[in-house]
């Protein structure tokens, strides 16, 4: 029995139901077959949508992303009264969980879709916080944030949440993750040189973030941490992934391919990546990755702290905006830097094997 009311309900369900195609098909087909009055149809529709979200909540949960998001929200609203801060944290995490369930997909989507979704997530979380504050002002004034804390907190947290979700959003594995970079026709040595240059540029970006946020406070602990720590942890991070034995292999015979040896040594200079199941250095790799992100995060915090504390806009805005943008750039390029290193290591190894076989 199709009429305007049931068609409207169906259209609403189509808009708000989680995107997973299999789940969506099951829900919508089952709903279409319900031959009832509008009120009962609406109850069936609500049940189908609730089922869709309940199926996806656990599947889409990502503990690292949730932890990182919680840290961002806590820091962004750190200067709010405790209960109001907790209320905002709850509102934001609930909104993001719903977005996770809504967008979670088992099939690979175009890259741009992930970026759009991540921006949409941050916007939805922001809207949810504003709506929850509207409710708090009417029903629970003690839970409402001071206006300045809310606007400044949102301005800092929204771009950061979008960035974190771009980096940490679970994605299905690409169709052929081990596709050889040799197929692109670029020589391995050229990929190696470009990758080393990329690593240097990335480190320069990190130091840019660090340098622009050094304070003039005497004995300030974050300043103490920011000297050699980024470069030392980047080298330790790289060292945890390097095959050091190839660099000590000095034995040359008549049948040794010097070219292959050189290529293998070049590979030893790159962060070739480690696997949890096969490499003993995996925990070291994870630790230094965490230290690196911690250093960048610390720089960001010192830059946005005056803005969040309520310093006049003219003094604090540009510094905070610059730090947020630099943090976004460092974090978003990090994944590509890692991928470039791994691709270059694969290309060098393949070319070395070819040289050995020749």
């Amino acid at each position: 029995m199709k009429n305007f009311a049931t068609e409207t309900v169906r259209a609403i369900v189509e808009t708000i139901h989680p995107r997973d195609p299999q789940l969506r098909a099951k829900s919508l087909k089952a709903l279409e077959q319900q031959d009832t009055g509008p009120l009962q149809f609406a109850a069936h529709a609500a049940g189908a949508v609730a089922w869709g979200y309940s199926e996806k909540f656990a599947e889409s949960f990502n503990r690292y992303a949730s932890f990182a998001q919680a840290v961002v929200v806590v820091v962004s609203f750190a200067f709010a009264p405790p209960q109001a801060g907790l209320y905002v944290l709850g509102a934001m995490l609930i909104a993001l969980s719903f977005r996770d369930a809504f967008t979670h997909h088992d099939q690979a989507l175009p890259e741009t879709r992930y970026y759009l979704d991540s921006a949409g997530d941050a916007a939805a979380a922001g809207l949810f916080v504003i709506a929850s504050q509207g409710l708090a002002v009417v029903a629970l004034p003690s839970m409402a944030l001071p206006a300045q804390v809310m606007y400044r907190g949102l301005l800092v947290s929204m771009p950061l949440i979008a960035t974190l979700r771009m980096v940490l959003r679970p994605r299905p594995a690409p169709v052929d993750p081990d596709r050889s970079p040799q197929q692109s026709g670029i020589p391995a040595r050229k990929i190696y040189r470009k990758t080393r240059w990329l690593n240097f540029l990335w480190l320069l970006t990190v130091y840019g973030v660090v340098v622009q946020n050094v304070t003039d406070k005497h004995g300030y602990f974050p300043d103490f941490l920011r000297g050699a720590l980024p470069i030392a942890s980047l080298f330790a991070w790289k060292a945890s992934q390097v095959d050091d034995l190839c660099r000590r292999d000095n034995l040359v015979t008549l049948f040794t391919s010097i070219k292959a040896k050189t290529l293998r040594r070049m590979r030893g200079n790159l962060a070739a990546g480690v696997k949890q199941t096969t490499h003993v250095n995996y925990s070291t790799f994870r630790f230094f990755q965490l230290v690196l992100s911690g250093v960048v995060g610390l720089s960001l915090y010192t830059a946005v702290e005056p803005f969040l504390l309520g310093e006049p806009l003219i003094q604090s805005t540009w510094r905070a905006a610059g730090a947020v943008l630099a943090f976004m750039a460092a974090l978003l390029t990090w994944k590509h830097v890692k991928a470039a290193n791994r691709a270059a290591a694969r290309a060098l190894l393949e070319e070395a094997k070819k040289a050995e076989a020749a």
Partner: protein
Amino acid sequence: MQLLEKQGRIIPDDHIEPVGDFDQMVLAAIYIGHGLADSARLVNQVSEMAGRQVYLGAVLRSLSGLERKHLIESWESDAATEAGGESNFYYNISIIGERALAYAKETSRVIAGLLGDLA
């Protein structure tokens, strides 16, 4: 074989999966449907069994729970063979599901009344 059993890949012959009251009714409705039970039919059938209006969400939740326990299987029909020209999802009971239902028949009077010839 022992390793597979330990990993839960082989279900022993005497294993009976515990099923809740509502799930028992859904399982019975699927059994009665003989492989042609879609969710709309299941909603009506379970509503009749329960003697109250049952909503789609509850049935879908029960179906996915039963499917996860491998008590039922779902399959999507070919659109060309359907009357409306659109594919549909149907549910079928598995052997473990039949075993669980036979056990439910012994323990529940409501289910026993519905399933005359089972086990």
